[in-house]
């Protein structure tokens, strides 16, 4: 799972550099987010622009991060979701769970 991290003042941005998140690489995403949270980075934007495909394990990895951030009084939000990927969030109603932003700027502007 190729990921890059951009550190900001209060929010870190995780750029997912893969076209596909499935059961082969979703555990890597889950662990990466968990490690960040454990290192004390409790506020994350996950930037998903590159991602053209996500399966249930990928949604699960993001949900795991969301829950773990919340349990640490932090926050995990999403940005730049492609339409076909967004459709998967809608099918599972996870679009009602996550805060979803058009881009990273909008995501950061909405945090306080």
């Amino acid at each position, binding site marked *: 799972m190729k990921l890059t991290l951009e550190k900001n003042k209060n929010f870190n941005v995780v750029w997912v550099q893969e076209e596909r998140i499935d059961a082969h690489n979703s555990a890597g995403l889950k662990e990466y987010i968990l490690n960040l949270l454990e290192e004390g980075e409790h506020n994350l934007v996950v930037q998903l622009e590159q991602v053209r495909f996500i399966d249930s394990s990928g949604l699960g*990895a993001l949900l795991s991060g969301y829950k773990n951030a919340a349990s640490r009084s932090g926050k995990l939000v999403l940005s730049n979701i492609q339409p076909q990927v967004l459709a998967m969030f809608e099918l599972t109603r996870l679009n009602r769970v996550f805060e979803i932003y058009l881009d990273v700027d909008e995501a950061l502007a909405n945090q306080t």
Partner: protein
Amino acid sequence: MGTADIQVEVIIPTQTKYLDLIGCIGERLGRELENFTGDREALAYYLNLVLTEATANAIKHAKDCRPEDTVRISINIQADELNIKVYDHGQGFDLETVPMPDFDDPKENGMGIYFIKTLMDSVTYVRQGDCNVLEIKKHLT
């Protein structure tokens, strides 16, 4: 491709690194269904997803038993119906008892079968000889 009848069988080891290949084969076949009058891009994506979910389950559960095992995937497309069969050698399970996801209390797991059921028209899981078959159908009209 063009003509309506498609029959492809793929056999892979029980390793998740092959999911990408299997999903993409499905996506490709979906995109080339020239006689399908609906949204071909969406169908291609659904085929990718459904094949990925079904194969991931077969890999996950076959692995527990025999690591040297293989998963066989058969894709058949006729003018009016699409049929996917995924064969595993795992312990099997009862498809009927898999619950719907609880949308008010979402969990990390348990969304795969839901995707398959929601996006396709029928799903069965039965014992056949020495293996289990998940059979997925979708009408294409």
